[in-house]
């Protein structure tokens, strides 16, 4: 494994940093955490700028409107975007739907759906979890019944990020209720404007609207929107779970939070001493280790290896590191740490408490730490099931 970036990689990083300095609103990431509406407006604006440079889908092959960028370039892109808290990336369209369609989509599907993603014009979301199917995803019960040229979809999805902003959704549905649970699932693309789709917000502990429930009441979906074979959708979904999960976002956001905290302590208390110094240094070591674990995953991919336990280890360690940094932040700030951005005396404009409140989801979303540790042990270390 290399521990130095090539010259062209460093050049790209610098180009990206210059771009962010130029394009991000003044003081972005330094004031209060933006409201969801502000964040969304910036997301749309920045996404267009990223698309103009081809960066939104830089990791796609040239033929689909990408730049064929290496996983290392992609890692740098994600690292710097995450560190700056820069809006605009497209997790669902560019990083999930795109690669999936490239493998499983028909020519017609690729022509129809990929260009709008590359141009940053469409928001996708992902309908996997259901109220009764969380870690045990394959037990999902939203069903799609055959109705001639259409499927008729009934059921509901939950924890659907961005469903309230989305134009389209990738949905896992049950098309054969009698088959073993992994074998009767199909992968559909659903227009969120279809009659019968209803989105209800779920508020989280941080008081923001990030997740949704989505209800399907006799929603008609054309069969041309089926990706891959009918009843084989589980395998489409699993392929997709393995794309591009280096975990660098956890390392980069952890490091940013830590740098902000260290700067605040240094400026407001005249120095970093005693237990605070020890705690911050301990977190610093962890963020470095998290970064290296993410680099390792990307490096394996760039060498054509398939990360397996490495991706899960990076996810577990990175997400838990973010929690530890946020926890240390709350301890370091003491009673002032509880003040929200609405309070003018809030240190760092309340960003630490906001991060702490959001941090709980890190070890649950995208596979709980328990599920990840199961994967590391059984798939990764070969322990018997």
């Amino acid at each position, binding site marked *: 494994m290399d521990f130095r970036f090539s010259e062209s990689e460093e050049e790209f990083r610098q180009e990206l940093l210059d771009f962010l300095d130029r394009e991000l609103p003044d003081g972005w990431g330094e004031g209060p955490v933006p409201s969801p509406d502000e964040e969304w407006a910036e997301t749309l604006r920045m996404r267009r700028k990223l698309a103009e440079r081809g960066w939104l889908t830089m990791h796609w092959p040239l033929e689909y409107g990408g730049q064929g960028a290496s996983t290392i370039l992609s890692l740098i892109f994600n690292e710097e975007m995450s560190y700056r808290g820069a809006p605009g990336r497209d997790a669902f369209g560019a990083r999930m739907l795109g690669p999936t369609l490239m493998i499983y989509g028909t020519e017609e599907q690729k022509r129809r759906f990929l260009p709008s993603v590359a141009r940053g014009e469409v928001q996708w979301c992902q309908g996997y979890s259901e109220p009764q199917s969380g870690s*045990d995803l394959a037990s999902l019960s939203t069903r799609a019944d055959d109705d001639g040229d259409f499927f008729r979809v009934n059921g509901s999805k939950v924890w659907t990020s961005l469903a309230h902003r989305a134009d389209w959704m990738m949905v896992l549905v049950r098309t054969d209720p009698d088959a073993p649970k992994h074998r009767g699932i199909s992968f559909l693309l659903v227009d969120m404007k279809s009659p019968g789709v209803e989105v209800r917000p*779920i508020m989280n502990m941080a008081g923001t609207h990030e997740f949704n429930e989505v209800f399907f009441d006799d929603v008609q979906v054309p069969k041309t929107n089926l990706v891959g074979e009918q009843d084989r959708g589980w395998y489409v979904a699993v392929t997709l779970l393995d794309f591009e999960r280096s975990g660098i976002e956890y390392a980069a956001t952890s490091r940013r939070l830590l740098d902000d905290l260290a700067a605040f302590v240094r400026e407001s208390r005249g120095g970093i001493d005693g237990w605070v110094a020890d705690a911050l240094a301990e977190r610093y070591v962890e963020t470095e280790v998290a970064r290296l674990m993410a680099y390792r995953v990307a490096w394996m991919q760039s060498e054509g290896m398939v990360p397996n336990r490495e991706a899960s280890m990076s996810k577990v360690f990175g997400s838990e590191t973010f929690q530890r940094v946020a926890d240390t932040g709350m*301890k370091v700030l003491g009673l002032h740490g*509880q003040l*929200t951005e*609405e309070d003018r005396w809030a240190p760092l404009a309340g960003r630490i408490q906001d991060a702490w409140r959001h941090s709980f989801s890190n070890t649950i979303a995208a596979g709980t730490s328990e599920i990840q540790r199961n994967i590391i042990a059984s798939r990764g270390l070969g322990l018997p099931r």
Partner: protein
Amino acid sequence: MLKTSAREVLAREFPFEAVRSMEEDARGYTPELWRSMSELGWLGLVVPEEYGGAEGSFLDLGMLLEEMGRALTPGPFFSTVALGALTVMDAGDEAMQSKLLSGIANGETIMTMAVTEGSGGFGPEEVRLRAERQGRGFALSGRKLFVPDAHVADYVIVAARTSEGADATEGITLFVVPMKEKGITVTPHRTMALEKQSRLKFNEVRLPANSALGTVDEGWPALQRALQRAATAKGLEMVGGAEAVLDMTLEYLKDRVQFGRPVGTFQALQHHCANMAIDVEGSRYAVYQAAYRISEGLPASREVSVAKAWVSDAYMRVCATAVQCHGAVGFTAEHNLQLFTRRARVQEQLYGDSGFHRRRLAAGLRG
């Protein structure tokens, strides 16, 4: 018995819906709630009989606080009774007691206490607000932060510096300050847990000589005892909260089915629960021990620091583990778990976090 009946009453009269609506309420409690508490005898629980109270012990109050911690009961009960009444009973002369205690017992008087200033700490060096002698009285100038329920209080006990001594414990005086006094500005903080705390600014607030609670310049011992009671009382609320969080997690794990079986059968989650139970059990007896010693009038500084050092971190661990056991529902606004988690983070800091109390204990190890 008080514990059981309190649990029933709280579940009936102060359900979680009320807790939620009070988070958004500027006052943070309803007059009906306060009246109920007065009628139940809770406000006078520890007040001497001559002032209309039940003369209960600190342990009696503790059992009630534990239940309130379990129910997240909103309102200025803690401030009025645990900070106000007990401090007046401990340090106030008869005149002061007769002025304040009856009103507390019958629900007319709301009190609180203001200690911490810039650093958010609770040591004697934290008291810098100046009380200058003016004639036979005093004038207070300075600010206090994170004062609970000050926005609705009738009186606030203020720890002020009346002289500079050889060390920070000398020259501290406690004053009982009517909140209607001129020169006091109350600015509510905006906090994560949405409990009510305020920033108080004192601008040449004039007080008569008899406002002092106890002897001028010698307030530290009384303040120290008040802070020990406060840390322990807060610890009791936290024990109740921690147990509630464990209970709701166990219920969830028994019901929730994944992979064809209750998720509570998975060893990883079982061990999470075992760890939570150990934290709850350890917290309970560490805090009970401190409460027992306070209740019996025994020296308690070591036991209080052990208790608050432990419960502060243990309760946070319990909440974090509970969220992990719940999965995504655990951090939704609609689930009650987040009400506890947000409060645990603030309670961790109140009257000293684990580091603060460990540093106190280390000073003892040095001895």
